[in-house]
């Protein structure tokens, strides 16, 4: 890949990659490290990618794997059956609350979501990858992506509703998911 092509690749993707990294790593410096490392791996291995059209998915996948390598931890697993019946509904006041919030505050709220849900949810909101591409990037089935999006949104709504309720005096419960037995 020529220097010009590489520069175009960086310009096209480094900002959304940074936003994704920030949601994962939570600190600006660590997010920057992750993005730099991702392009470093591309500089070393990107020529091995046969289909250049898949570069975007490759970059998100690589960044996520780099993050996992540095953050080995047990993931909380929950069951879709335990999703509260009303967890899929968005109160109108929560929508208004989000619109009034600063971007940094929304990121902070997003970072309160369990990582297993936060990762696909961030990719969803970045709008760069479809749910199928997200499934490829995270190496999970499509149904799992949809499930995690559903539960991630439920958590995000609850976190945001708490902030909204803080100004209105409402009490909002955080959705509880029953844990599956760990491996």
């Amino acid at each position: 890949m020529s220097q010009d092509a590489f520069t175009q690749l960086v310009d096209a993707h480094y900002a959304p990659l940074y936003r994704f990294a920030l949601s994962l790593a939570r600190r600006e410096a660590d997010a920057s490290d992750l993005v730099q490392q991702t392009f470093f791996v591309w500089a070393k291995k990107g020529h091995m990618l046969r289909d250049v059209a898949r570069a975007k998915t490759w970059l998100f996948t690589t960044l996520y794997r780099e993050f996992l390598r540095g953050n080995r931890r047990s993931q909380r697993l929950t069951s879709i059956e335990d999703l509260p019946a009303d967890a899929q509904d968005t109160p109108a006041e929560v929508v208004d609350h989000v619109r009034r919030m600063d971007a940094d505050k929304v990121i902070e709220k997003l970072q309160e979501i369990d990582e297993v849900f936060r990762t696909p949810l961030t990719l969803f909101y970045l709008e760069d990858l479809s749910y199928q591409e997200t499934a490829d990037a995270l190496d999970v089935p499509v149904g799992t992506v949809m499930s995690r999006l559903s539960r991630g949104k439920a958590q995000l709504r609850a976190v945001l509703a708490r902030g909204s309720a803080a100004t209105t005096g409402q009490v909002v419960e955080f959705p509880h998911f029953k844990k599956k037995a760990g491996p």
Partner: protein
Amino acid sequence: MNNDEAKFILGAYRPGGHDSGDPVLAEALEKAQRDPALRVWLEREQAFDTAVSAKLRAVQPPSGLRDAILAGAKVSRSRPTWVRPLWVGLAAAIVLALTLWSLRPYTSADGGFFTDGLARFAALDVRGDHAGAVHANRAGVVGAWLQDPTNRLLAGIPADTARLQADRCRVVRFAGRDVFEICFKRDAVFHVYISPRRNSDSASDTAAPMFREHGTLASVSWGDARNIYVMVTDAGVDALRRIL
């Protein structure tokens, strides 16, 4: 398909309308058009998703990140031949593997934005390109001074810009600035990156020595009236302290 199933599927429908042609989502979208309750739910869901998406996409990367990426890739591609013997290549492969393992948060530091970025860049550069390479004998007066075990670096490296232009082993670009690199050996191998100061550099960019850990590597940054320095080694923070 009932409404709960449709909601589950439509949860993956991106707010920008990118997925309107997706056949899996199409059936659920059609159902939302026919079912008033589901349509209201989808409109509110889309309003919520659009609001969150707009906030997330409003976050801007740090101003120096793009330059750091491009500079890092450039030096990793075009290495001078004197830092590319076969064993260095093999070592680089091993170091790359270690890098993937070792990418974890380094010691939190507030050493100034430019200096922080330069320290990360230098660690990546050393990891990927020339770990172990020593070429101070090519670096004239400055290199000889650095190799002299009686000299302490905080006493002041004799490195004005003209001298660095003449003596440097290598010049790399970082954040739009020339950074002169010299590698030298005392009881361990050290890589010092020297950037002439600019008036725009913050006070913290030239503050007291700031140590950082980058996985298997350690760095220290400091500044004086002329330059900002970052030194990297795989011998640990104590080795850095001994020669400062």
